[in-house]
């Protein structure tokens, strides 16, 4: 199915490592919503669908947000799929607009768990984590992906310092994103000297948890203020692709990668900009590899070449530099950033002639690695 919905509005709240008393998840979501509505040139009463993802609105649900935000709706969705929830919401909302179930859907995500709240979520993420990983002191996802990263290093002959260029590139982008929590540039020396968190992952390899919210509005009609409309040209997902029996160095993208490009009538070389879900550098590389972006799967050379070129990956800085407001808003931020690039609205981060972008979501660490992955090709025209 080729979707005809457009991304007509984008808005975000402040991202902060240390939220003040009034920076609650509801307030941050309100701010993101206000900004997205203004950007879309729409009023609250124009919104007839709401998709929402958040770890920290509990005990509230999507309908509570609808009520408290004064939204009267035909269509409602709450998505709990962590790093894949933003993409999941984009897919469901696109189909809802395609079928006429709703005309203007507000897709909203945000979290303000605080570090202790986040630690609680990380240690009881699912029953397997609660029962079989947390008692080991596995350190949440850092422990899980430290082992995945070690496997990737072995399989692709990478050394720890090879990863630096990806982090440095994203930090360079973050320096141009006013919302990013870390904007200082990063050097190889700083990366190599950084304290280990869970070997081989150092501080710069682990996402900084922030409080924040992000919102996009999907519509059946153009935003007439915008010169370019962004549409979803191709959208595929994979859930539990390997029963956790693989080693986590491949993702479910391998199940649909050819269909992803075929449906958009494009090939990997046509893509101008990428938002690759970046909970960990190894997972960015695994997804790029499965998307056939890395020539001959030679990750070492790919990373080395990052030194010399502007790499249009995670041009908002990604979660690794800009911050992770839960996994959910982080995923939505990636979608919004590609839309801004394709609409020529990315400010001093703007790439030249960006027409096609790929966005992904990855998440739901079941036991040994993530169980969900989604990818879409967006087009600006």
């Amino acid at each position, binding site marked *: 199915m080729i979707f005809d919905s457009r991304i007509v509005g984008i808005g975000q709240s402040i991202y902060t490592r240390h939220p003040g008393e009034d920076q609650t998840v509801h307030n941050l979501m309100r701010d993101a919503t206000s900004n997205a509505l203004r950007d879309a040139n729409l009023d609250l009463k124009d919104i007839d669908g709401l998709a929402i993802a958040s770890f920290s609105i509990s005990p509230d649900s999507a309908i509570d947000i609808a009520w408290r935000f004064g939204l009267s709706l035909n269509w409602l969705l709450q998505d709990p799929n962590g790093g894949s929830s933003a993409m999941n919401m984009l897919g469901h909302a696109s189909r809802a607009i395609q079928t006429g179930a709703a005309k203007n859907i507000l897709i909203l995500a945000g979290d303000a768990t605080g570090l202790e709240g986040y630690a609680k979520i990380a240690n009881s993420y699912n029953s397997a984590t609660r029962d*079989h990983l947390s008692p080991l*002191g596995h350190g949440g996802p850092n422990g899980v992906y430290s082992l995945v990263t070690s496997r990737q290093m072995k399989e692709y002959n990478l050394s720890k310092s090879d990863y630096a260029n990806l982090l440095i590139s994203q930090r360079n982008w973050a320096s141009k994103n006013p919302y990013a929590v870390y904007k200082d540039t990063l050097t190889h020396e700083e990366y190599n000297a950084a304290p280990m*968190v869970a070997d*081989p992952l150092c501080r710069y390899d682990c996402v900084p948890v922030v409080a924040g919210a992000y919102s996009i509005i999907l519509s059946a009609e153009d935003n007439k203020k915008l010169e370019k409309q962004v549409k979803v040209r191709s959208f595929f997902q994979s859930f539990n692709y390997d029963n956790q029996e693989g080693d986590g160095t491949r993702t479910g993208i391998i199940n649909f990668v050819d269909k992803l490009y075929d449906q958009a009538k494009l090939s990997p070389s046509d893509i101008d900009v990428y938002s690759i879900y970046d909970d960990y550098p190894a997972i960015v590389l695994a997804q790029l590899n499965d998307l056939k972006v890395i020539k001959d799967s030679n990750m070492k050379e790919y990373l080395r070449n990052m030194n010399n070129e502007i790499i249009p990956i995670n041009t908002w800085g990604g979660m690794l530099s800009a911050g992770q407001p839960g996994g959910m808003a982080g995923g939505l931020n990636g979608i919004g950033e590609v839309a801004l690039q394709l609409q020529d609205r990315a400010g001093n981060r703007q790439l030249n002639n960006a027409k096609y972008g790929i966005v992904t979501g990855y998440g739901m660490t079941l036991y040994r690695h993530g169980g969900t992955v989604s990818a879409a090709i967006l087009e600006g025209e």
Partner: protein
Amino acid sequence: MEKLQFFECNKCSKQTFPKKFFCSNCGNIDFDLIDAPEGKIKEISVIRHMLGNKDWQPRKIANIQTDTGVSLTVGIEDNIQIGDILNIYSKDGAPFAKK
């Protein structure tokens, strides 16, 4: 410590951990509980930092793989190295590997 229990499909003998409700190989729903076989340490990590815990002491976890094709994450003592063949025990249901 008691040996960790694996779940073995009583139709096709595929082993799994943690518990599943259908065998991913044959769809059977009946499993026998068996003692986990020995496994080989494949990767090791040192958890040096724990969110929300200021007094954290570093400890090691590892990926261990059995000859029967099960990979799982275990706690290990400091002197364990990659390639070691270890027995897998249960500490209140959490897997821990020892010589």
